[in-house]
């Protein structure tokens, strides 16, 4: 059987929020949207980017969890916290290199993307990738992505000295094999700009 993989291409995102809506329809966490959609630098651009769980090979979220509440399925999907175990400490929230888990205050638990396990475990596409109109989130075969995109998919990341391998791929320029993360500062800080009490972008940012 040809295997589908998940590919993320931040630069294709048009900020339509279809993924945000679709995520809330997922049966494993109905009514709660877990995907992140960030506006990158609201004052300067309309750039947005989605973030799903990258399903790390050796998930840091699980390593730092005191309750042993985060488990990986045999097919490499890192599940949301096990409800009887999660004690809501947020270690995973503040340690995940991709900023994925969400602490849900009402139920005192962490919840995160589980790649729509109810769907992907039976061969269907995840909700977000099904509705994404721009291909920022794509669930398809390796051959298909190589045929249709300029970039190449990679799944190796470096955060400082920490190398992380993920099940989800990101599209990068050809010949690159890894994403090296350094801190990219905010270009225009609020302090550098004249204060404007009606600056909606700034209000939304904070």
């Amino acid at each position: 059987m040809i295997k589908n993989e998940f590919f993320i291409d931040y630069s294709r995102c048009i900020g339509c929020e279809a993924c945000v809506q679709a995520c809330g329809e997922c049966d494993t966490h109905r009514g709660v949207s877990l995907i992140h959609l960030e506006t990158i630098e609201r004052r300067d651009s309309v750039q947005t980017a989605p973030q799903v769980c990258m399903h790390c090979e050796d998930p840091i979220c699980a390593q730092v969890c005191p309750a042993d509440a985060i488990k990986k399925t045999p097919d490499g999907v890192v599940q949301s916290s096990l409800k009887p175990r999660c004690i809501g400490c947020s270690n995973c929230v503040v340690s995940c290199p991709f900023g994925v888990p969400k602490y849900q205050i009402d139920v005192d638990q962490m919840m995160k993307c589980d790649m729509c396990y109810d769907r992907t475990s039976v061969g269907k596409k995840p909700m977000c990738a099904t509705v994404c109109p721009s291909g920022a989130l794509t669930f398809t075969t390796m051959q298909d992505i190589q045929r249709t995109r300029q970039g190449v998919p990679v799944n190796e990341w470096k955060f400082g000295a920490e190398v992380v391998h993920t099940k989800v791929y990101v599209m990068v320029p050809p010949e690159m094999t890894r994403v090296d993360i350094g801190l990219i500062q905010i270009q225009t800080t609020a302090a550098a700009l004249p204060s404007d009490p009606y600056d909606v972008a700034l209000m939304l940012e904070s």
Partner: protein
Amino acid sequence: MWGLLATVSLIGGIYIGSRGLRDFDPALVSYAGATLFAAFGLAYRFSMWLRRPPTRLYWYRGWQIFTKRGSLGKNLAHLFEIFMSNFIFQRFIERRSHMRWTAHWFLAWGCLLAGAITFPLSFGWIHFETATSSQEIYRAFLFGIPVGQFPVHSVIAELAFNALDIAAMMVLIGVFTALWRRGRDHGAMAVQQFADDLMPLILLFAICVTGLFLTASTHLMHGLHYTFLSQLHAVTVIVTLVYLPFGKFFHIFQRPAQLGVDFYKRAGKEGEQAVCIRCGNEYGSRMQMDDMKRLQAALNIHYQLKDGSHYQDICPKCRRKNLALTQDSMWKTLVEKGEGS
């Protein structure tokens, strides 16, 4: 070592509590034996669990904050409050769904009631005798000390002798509600596993049904097949006791950690807050971020960035933005090199 210690302590407790085994009921020896095995397994697994660096961190921090000088009184009051809400009423489960809460509440309290009766009984810590003066009076003993008496035909007697049936009915309500939910909720169906999620329900169901059969055999069928049924019931209980440390039931012993985390979070809120080095916003307690750095060092996670900053000092939101910007900058570098299309 902790496993052995727990087993030896329990043997000591049984010996002393049953007054040198004088009150020990030999018919219940298999239950006591399985409980000893469960105690060993539980203590062993608990000690292994505590050896994990993140668990150990919260264990020490939780106790440290709880017993901090000058705050003990306040902490005890808060402990009572969260104990009532999280343990007695299990409100956090209710907020997930009413059906899940109904199932869990009946299962939990049915099991606790049954456990509160059967463990002391099988250890010989409580026993009942008819009074020497009258066959119509029952006397209850705790650790060999008489603690009360009641007429055989009274409401108290009915409750006392049918308490296990009441517990079984509670557990059965819980089992059926849980099965109903698990059979209809597509999300639960996708992630549930037989050994972890269904097996415990099947075991509890088996205990309850065989237990209720014993009552039925006694009261309705003149003791028909009583010996066989009691052996069958013993098998179901023993299998569950043996399963206790390894399966889902272990969460009963793990869960109180939530109380420690509650104290940790409160102390974190009252203390200094961590500020993101990218956006300048607060995103958690300084204490937790510092603890995370120590924890990551213990786990061989190396988040120090090339520019000397630490990835832990960037808030999750900025991490996500940073990822997209990094991808951008990769394409930008390519374009600047003149290699892009």
